[in-house]
């Protein structure tokens, strides 16, 4: 499958008037998703930035439910079953669009159960690496060294202390469920992301896409730089683009010709600024990123 810009519909399914922050990557991502999915879509949002984004004047032009924080997978299961029972299932795109808190942390059980049972739905986690809607608290997706309000910088703390190598790797965790398709994606590579959405929606079964979503407020970046930061995450291989088919078949989608040092990614974000003049910390992060990239390259 492939996506060409000239084939994309001009119509916008996510209508203006949302309550999102300027430069919100989750909204940019939602727009890309709906360019592929169109109005023949039922969307479930777990509690997070996007349910606030949608919940004001600007309504999406497809059926939508804000579930609860931890149950988007279960609510999608019910919708899938009801559509089947009612002979309405065939051509409807059922999509969960949930943040990392609702996915990696509190919603993990419901997601795991839903994919294990084999419901047909696409689960997209927009990962802004923390609880950004409630004021930047750390989550299971927060990277090592990031300063958040619950992993703050202090006299004896350098921000989030859990090593990068032990951050919950949702794509591989989901692939370990043996589901047909999982992938990472980036708003800086829209054609790659939209192809992945298209691929996932064509599959009669559970699929998962993990979308890195830089957050201007939580990450300390200028709203105009959201896409730049997302691109640098890929070009430093801090957040590589890859997909796993059938739970086993890895494919790296983009191999930067010249991998940039991770410092170039970190230095764009205020949440890491305390690490920038600390060569030991930078080395710890660079080595973890290198190890992951080597692992992926050999898969």
């Amino acid at each position: 499958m492939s996506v060409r810009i000239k084939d994309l519909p001009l119509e916008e399914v996510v209508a203006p008037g949302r309550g999102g922050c300027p430069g919100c990557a989750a909204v940019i991502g939602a727009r890309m998703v709906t360019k592929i999915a169109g109005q023949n879509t039922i969307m479930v949002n777990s509690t997070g930035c996007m349910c606030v984004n949608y919940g004001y004047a600007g309504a999406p032009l497809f059926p939508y439910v804000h579930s609860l924080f931890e149950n988007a997978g279960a609510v999608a299961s019910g919708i899938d079953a009801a559509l089947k029972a009612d002979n309405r299932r065939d051509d409807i795109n059922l999509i969960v669009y949930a943040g990392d808190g609702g996915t990696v942390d509190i919603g993990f059980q419901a997601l795991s159960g839903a994919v294990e049972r084999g419901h047909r739905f696409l689960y997209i986690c927009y990962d802004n690496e923390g609880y950004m809607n409630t004021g930047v608290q750390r989550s299971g997706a927060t990277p090592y060294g990031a300063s958040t309000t619950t992993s703050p910088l202090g006299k004896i703390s350098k921000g989030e202390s859990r090593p990068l190598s032990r951050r919950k790797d949702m794509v591989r965790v989901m692939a370990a469920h043996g589901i047909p398709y999982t992938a990472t994606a980036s708003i800086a590579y829209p054609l790659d992301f939209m192809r992945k959405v298209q691929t996932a929606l064509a599959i009669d079964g559970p699929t998962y896409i993990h979308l890195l979503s830089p957050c201007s407020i939580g990450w300390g970046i200028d709203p105009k730089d959201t896409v730049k930061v997302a691109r640098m995450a890929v070009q430093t291989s801090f957040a590589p683009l890859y997909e796993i088919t059938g739970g086993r078949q890895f494919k790296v989608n983009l191999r930067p010709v010249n991998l940039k040092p991770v410092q170039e990614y970190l230095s764009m974000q205020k949440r890491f600024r305390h690490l920038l003049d600390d060569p030991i910390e930078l080395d710890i992060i660079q080595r973890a990123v290198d190890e992951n990239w080597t692992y992926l390259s050999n898969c």
Partner: protein
Amino acid sequence: MRQYLSGNKAAAEGARLAEVKVVAAYPITPQTSIVEYLASFVANGELAAEMIPVESEHSAISATYGASLTGVRTFVASSSQGLALMHEALFMASGLRLPIVMAIANRALASPVTIFTDHQDSLAQRDTGWLQFYVEDCQEVLDTILIAYRVAEDCRVLLPIMVCFDGFYVSHISEPVDVPDVAQVREFLPEFKANYPVLDIANPKMFNVMAFPQFFEEFQRDKHESMVGSEQVIKEAMLDFERIFNRSYSMIETYCTEDADIIIAGLGSMMGTVRTAIDQLRSTGLKIGMAKIKSFRPFPYQDLAQALKGAKVIGILDRDISPGSTGIVYQEVLATLQETPNKCIVDFVLGLGGRDVTIDTIEKATGILEQVLSGSELKRRVIWVDENREVLDIWKVGETNVG
């Protein structure tokens, strides 16, 4: 057709006859066999439904409201810890105004651990915006599930309903049950068609969006007023049920109350024991009667006040306790009788964690009510009518003999 069914089987038969389209449930004693029966109905093609064997009770109710919001008839069942785990999502089901029916095989809550019955689990959910019916025997389980769908789906109500029956005493005891045929049921309960907004591609709507302070209260008020108004709908449904099936139910069921000085009121299967005890006590000349509260939400204040009108002393059987206050049913009855001060109302807490409520228990409680009738004052607000003094003396938290 007359069959020999347990309460759990009767509940499953009720869901089958209602031709539910989606069932989501998680195993928990003593509810488990409801789900097993339904799974077997689906496996044998006796019920054309999707079964979702969810990974938790929270997901059971979540999948159910997802399915209900998609516009199909849904069924779910639970008990005890599982129902407690559902708590958060119960508000979603009522807030989204979804006509879900849930069977509850009542069971006490830990700690300490027990698998046996009391009403703490469902009474702890009384403020979630669900209607609650408490039933006494297996026939009533089946019938009430059908009545519940009829009421829940009525556009004047559109609220979810719990049908509660005692774990083991009803869930696992088999009795002859008249199982109606599908045609009769269809006459009472037409095929479900959501005549309100659902997740529908042709008519896209957003659900569970933010309501700011200028709106939120009105949503709650509408839910409350719909619940209050459901009394009329319940009565209509019960009358129609009687017309079609020749079995009659009411929100407050009375027995020998007309001339009674003493009336005992309460919920669930123990009210059958009360009925038998009343027969015995009446033979000794005592003017005693019973009011079984079938509908706890909505609480039928007027009907109950009417039933208790002639009594001088009223005993409430609470198979539950709100620690630091009183039994929960007692509070509701006090609210019912607030304008009739010349009555003595006594709260009995009993039957917790499966302790058997026997005719002896009822006679013991009646003895206390007789003393009150003859003018004695009670020292305690809550009477633990069947207390185990020996255990109580040992089990004092903080003392050295507890270990």
